[in-house]
């Protein structure tokens, strides 16, 4: 498999995972805001390039690219929210420590 094929496959798999997650949210009646879409668009190239780079470097077969991409797209929102919460807490702790 050539490099661009791995990157394209990873991008499509991540997009499919994200669409699945958003679709599940929509069908459960939960609101999907513009912020979610923005996060989606910013995470797509990031995850796509990470998975594609891993695939070209370690020589992954196609099925593992697809599985990794779908999983990354599916949990992407949760990961972003987790990182944001973590960053906010660490920031609050640091500013609190500075205030003391």
């Amino acid at each position, binding site marked *: 498999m050539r490099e661009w094929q791995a990157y394209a496959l990873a991008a499509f798999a991540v997009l*499919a995972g994200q669409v699945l997650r958003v679709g599940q949210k929509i*069908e459960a*009646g939960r609101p999907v805001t513009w912020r979610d879409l923005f996060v989606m668009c910013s995470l797509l190239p990031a995850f796509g390039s990470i998975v594609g780079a891993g695939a070209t470097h370690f020589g992954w077969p196609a099925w593992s690219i697809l599985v990794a991409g779908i999983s990354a797209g599916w949990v992407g929102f949760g990961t972003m929210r987790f990182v944001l919460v973590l960053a906010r807490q660490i920031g609050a702790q640091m500013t609190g420590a500075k205030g003391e």
Partner: protein
Amino acid sequence: MTALGHIMSVVAIWTMMLFGLRFAVAAGNWLLPLAGAAWQLARCEGPDTRICRRRFLQAVDQLHIDLHSAITTPWSATLLFAGSVLIGFAFAAGSAGDAAQLVSHHPEAWTAFDIVTDCIAALAGVTGMAFVQAATSRRRTASFLVSAALVLTGLGIGVVTL
């Protein structure tokens, strides 16, 4: 295999896998509160049992009410039954080709028929599942858009791996 055959089979496998996943997760979401109530009922002990049982029955009723309120858009019932018809014909068509190959004295003669019926099965099955999914979801147009996006990613993967 020709290029068109490769793209078609990749799209069919990809969309059927993802739609199945989506179907199962969406339906499981509906059943989640019911499962919670059943879990509580199973763990209930002593004099609380009647309350737990009433709560479980309330959860069952609530699920029915939720489904009733989700299917409010005018074409939902039509979509639901049209989707069921499509899924049923998809199963019948998909097995017809294989059945012909099984009972025939010359299975190779039926290979083209098998391929055509498999194509029909994939097409009708995916469309029917999208219909049923859209009928039971609260936002119908968005559900159709999600289905279309999944098919498009399958097309992209088929073209890329050509």
